[in-house]
C-alpha cells in the first residue's frame, strides 16, 4: 500500500539507531512503570500473561481493558512480539479485511444504486425527453418499415419437390409449351404437389409446371415474370446430390400447386450423410395427398456404389404466383414430411423449385454433419500438480483417495483408526498445514470432506 506521507520523517524514524530507540523505550517505560505501580499495589509482573496476550491479539477485550494493554505493549518489546505472533497466526488482519469488505458492501451497493437511479432518472427528464422523443419515433418508424419490407420480400414462396426422373421428363414434355408463354405462368401452379398442406393455390389438372424449362428472364423481357428452369443432372457418383425439401405430392395425379417462390439450388455434398438443402418450397394444400413415392427431403442418399443420376430443376415463377421462400431445411434432421417407403428408393431424384425472377436470395447451405462430440473441457490443471482423477479415485500428493459417501477417503485409512476433526480455516487447521504443505495440497485439491491418514494420524478435514 502506497503511503503518501512525510518522507523525511519516514527516513528518520526508519533509520533510527538502536541507542535512540532504547532511549525512547526507556523514557516511555519509566512513565508506564510508574503508572502501573500506582495501579497495582501488589507490584505484579509487568508482562502480560498468555491469556491477556491472546485475548488482546484476537480483539477479544473490552475497550477499556484493551487500552490498558496497549500502553504496556507500546513499551514492552517481548510482549509486543508475542502479541504480534499470535495475531499473525490467528489471521487477524484477514478477519479485519473481511469485516471491512462486508461493511462496505452494502454502502457501496447503496451508492451504486443511488447513482444508477440518478442516472436513470436523468434520462427521463423533460429536457431529455424533448430530444429523445423524435429520435425514438424515428427508430420505431424505421423498424416498422423495415419489418414490412422484409415481410413483403418474403411473400414469395418456394416449392421444391423431388420427383422421379421419369416423371420429371414427362412433366417437362407436357409443360414445355406452357413455359413458352409467360402469361400462362400466371395461371395456377404447375404440377408440384406436396403431401402436406401448405399455403398457396393448388389446382389439379395441370402437370407440374416445375418440371418444364422456363425461358430466361431476358427473353421474356420481364424479369419479374421470367421463368427459368435450371436443371442439374447429377450423377450418383458425383459428390453433389440434390434433394427436395418439401414432400412430393402424388405423382399420379396432376396436382398443380401455385407456389411462386424462389428456388435455390439444392445440392448434396460428397458426404453420403450430408445433404445441402437450401430452400424449401411450401406448397399449398390441394387434396389429401397420398403418400408420395419420392420424398422432397432426403437427408441421406444411398451409397455411392449405385450410379444414379440426379436432376435439379429450378423453375422461376413470375409474379402473381405466390412465392414462398422456403426456409432452409436441415434435412439431416428428421422431417415430418418425409415419406418412408418412397425414400427407400432414393434413386433418380429430382428437385424442382420455382424461383422468383428477382435475384436469388443468398444461398444457404445446410450440411448435416455428423454430430460432433462436444469437447470435454479439461479441468484446469491444479496448481501444484500431482493430481489426477480416474473414476472414483484420485491421487494427490502421492496418496490414493477414493470417493466414499460423499467424502474423499485415503485408501490407507482404516475404520478402526480414530479420527480428528479439523475444520478448514480454524486455528487447528492453520497450525496443521503450516508445517505440512503436502497436507495443505491434499485439503485444497480434493475439497469437501477429506479423510486422510497423515503421519499415523487420521484427520477428517471439512
Amino acid at each position, binding site marked *: 500500500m502506497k503511503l503518501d506521507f512525510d518522507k523525511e520523517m519516514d527516513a528518520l524514524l526508519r533509520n533510527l539507531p538502536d541507542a535512540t530507540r532504547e532511549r525512547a523505550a526507556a523514557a516511555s517505560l519509566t512513565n508506564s512503570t510508574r503508572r502501573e505501580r500506582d495501579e497495582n499495589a501488589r507490584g505484579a509482573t509487568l508482562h502480560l500473561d498468555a491469556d491477556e496476550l491472546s485475548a488482546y*491479539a484476537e480483539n477479544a477485550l473490552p475497550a477499556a481493558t484493551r487500552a490498558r494493554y496497549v500502553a504496556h505493549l507500546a513499551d514492552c518489546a517481548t510482549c509486543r512480539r508475542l502479541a504480534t505472533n499470535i495475531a499473525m497466526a490467528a489471521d487477524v488482519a484477514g478477519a479485519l479485511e473481511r469485516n471491512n469488505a462486508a461493511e462496505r458492501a452494502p454502502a457501496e451497493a447503496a451508492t451504486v444504486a443511488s447513482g444508477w437511479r440518478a442516472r436513470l432518472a436523468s434520462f427521463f427528464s423533460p429536457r431529455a425527453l424533448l430530444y429523445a422523443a423524435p429520435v425514438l419515433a424515428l427508430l420505431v418508424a424505421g423498424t416498422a418499415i423495415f419489418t414490412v419490407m422484409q415481410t413483403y420480400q418474403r411473400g414469395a414462396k418456394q416449392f421444391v419437390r423431388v420427383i422421379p426422373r421419369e416423371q420429371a421428363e414427362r412433366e417437362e414434355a407436357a409443360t414445355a409449351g406452357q413455359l413458352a408463354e409467360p402469361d400462362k405462368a400466371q395461371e395456377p401452379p404447375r404440377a408440384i404437389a406436396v403431401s402436406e398442406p401448405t399455403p398457396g393455390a393448388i389446382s389439379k389438372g395441370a402437370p407440374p409446371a416445375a418440371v418444364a424449362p422456363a425461358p430466361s428472364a431476358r427473353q421474356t423481357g420481364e424479369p419479374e415474370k421470367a421463368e427459368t428452369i435450371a436443371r442439374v443432372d447429377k450423377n450418383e457418383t458425383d459428390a453433389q446430390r440434390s434433394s427436395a425439401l418439401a414432400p412430393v405430392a402424388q405423382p399420379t395425379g396432376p396436382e398443380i400447386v401455385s407456389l411462386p417462390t424462389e428456388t435455390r439450388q439444392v445440392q448434396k455434398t460428397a458426404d453420403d450423410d450430408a445433404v445441402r438443402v437450401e430452400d424449401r418450397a411450401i406448397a399449398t394444400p390441394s387434396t389429401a395427398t397420398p403418400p408420395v413415392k419420392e420424398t422432397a427431403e432426403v437427408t441421406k442418399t444411398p451409397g455411392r456404389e449405385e450410379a444414379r443420376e440426379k436432376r435439379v430443376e429450378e423453375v422461376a415463377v413470375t409474379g402473381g404466383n405466390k412465392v414462398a421462400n422456403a426456409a432452409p431445411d436441415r434435412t439431416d434432421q428428421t422431417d415430418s414430411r418425409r415419406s418412408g417407403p418412397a425414400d427407400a428408393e432414393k434413386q433418380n431424384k429430382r428437385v424442382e423449385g420455382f424461383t422468383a425472377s428477382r435475384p436469388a436470395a443468398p444461398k444457404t447451405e445446410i450440411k448435416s454433419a455428423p454430430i460432433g462430440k462436444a469437447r470435454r473441457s479439461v479441468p484446469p490443471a491444479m496448481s501444484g500438480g500431482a493430481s489426477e482423477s480416474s473414476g472414483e479415485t484420485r491421487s494427490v500428493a502421492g496418496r490414493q483417495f477414493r470417493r466414499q459417501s460423499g467424502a474423499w477417503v485415503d485408501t490407507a485409512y482404516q475404520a478402526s483408526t480414530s479420527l480428528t476433526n479439523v475444520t478448514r480455516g480454524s486455528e487447528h487447521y492453520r497450525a496443521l498445514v503450516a508445517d505440512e504443505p503436502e497436507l495443505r495440497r491434499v485439503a485444497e485439491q480434493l475439497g469437501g470432506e477429506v479423510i486422510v491418514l497423515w503421519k499415523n494420524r487420521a484427520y477428517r478435514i471439512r
Partner: protein
Amino acid sequence: MRRSRPAPTDDLSLRDAAAQLLSRAADARSLKEDAILPRLRATLDKYLLRDQPEASTQEIAKFVASLRADELILVIACERGDETAWRDLMESYRATVLSAARGASAGEAEAVELAQSVWAELYGLREREDGRPAGKLAYYSGCGSLGGWLRAVVGQLGVDRHRRSSRLVQTEEDADFDRLMNDGDHDRGVFSVEAAPDPERALAERQAAETVRAALARVIAGLAAEDRLLVKLYYFDGLRLREAGAVLGVHEATASRRLTRLHAEIRRGVETLLVAEHRWTPEEISRTLADVAARLDADFSQALIAGAASVERREERR
C-alpha cells in the same frame, strides 16, 4: 485499591450467565454452573470489572456471551481430570502447539522438546490440595481462543528458555547488529572525525544529528500509547502496515492514515523542541532534518556493508 466482591444479586446474574454459557457449548461435558462459576468470576474481575467496576448486568451478560464456551468447558473439564477431555485437547491442539514450538525454536528437536514441556506445564507438575495436578490450564479464561492462548504459552516458555541460555547464545538480533555496527565503525572509520574532509563541519553535523535524534526519542516517548505502539510496530519491529494494523485491531487503511497523522505530529513535536531548547530557526530545522535524514540513509547502508564485512573477518579468524 481493593475491589469489592460482587453483591449477592450479582451472583444470581452470574449464575444465569454461567447457565447460558453451558447451554451455548456443544458439549457441556457433564459440568454444572458451580464448576465454572469461579472461573467466570475471575475472568470478569480481570477483564471487565477492573476497568468498569460499575458494569451493568447487560454488559456482564454481553461479555460472558463473548467467551469461548466450548474451549472454556474443555479446559475446565481437563482441570477436573476428565480423561476424554484431555484426549480431545491433545488431539485438537497437538499441531498448534508443535507449530508454535517450531516458531520459537531453532530446530525440530528443540521444537519437539519445547512442545512436550508445554504439555507437561499444561497438565501440571505440581499437585493441588485435592491431589489433582496444578497446571497452566487454570489461567485460561475463555476470552481469547484456546489456540491463541496455547501459542502465547509456547512463546513465553520459549522466551524463558532463551533467556536462560542467553549467556552462551546471542539472541537479540538488534544488539548483535548494533555491536557489528560499532565494530564496523572502528574498522572502517565511517564515523571517525579524522576521515572527514572538514573535521569541524563533520563534528557540527554529528552534533546536529544527535540533537535531532534526541528530540525524536523524546517526542516518540510522549506520544499516546496507541500511537507509540504503531510507531514501534512499524518502525522498530519492522512489521508491514497490514500486520501492524492487525496488532492494533484496525484495518490497514486506518493504520496508514494514523501513521500519516503521526508523521506530522512528530515533526511538529521535534520542531517545537528544537526551537524551544536549542533556539533553532525554522530554516535551520528544515535543513538539518533533511540532512540528517539523508545521512541516516547513507549511514544505514554503509553500516550494513560494514557489518557484513565484519562478519566475514570473524569467520576468517576462526
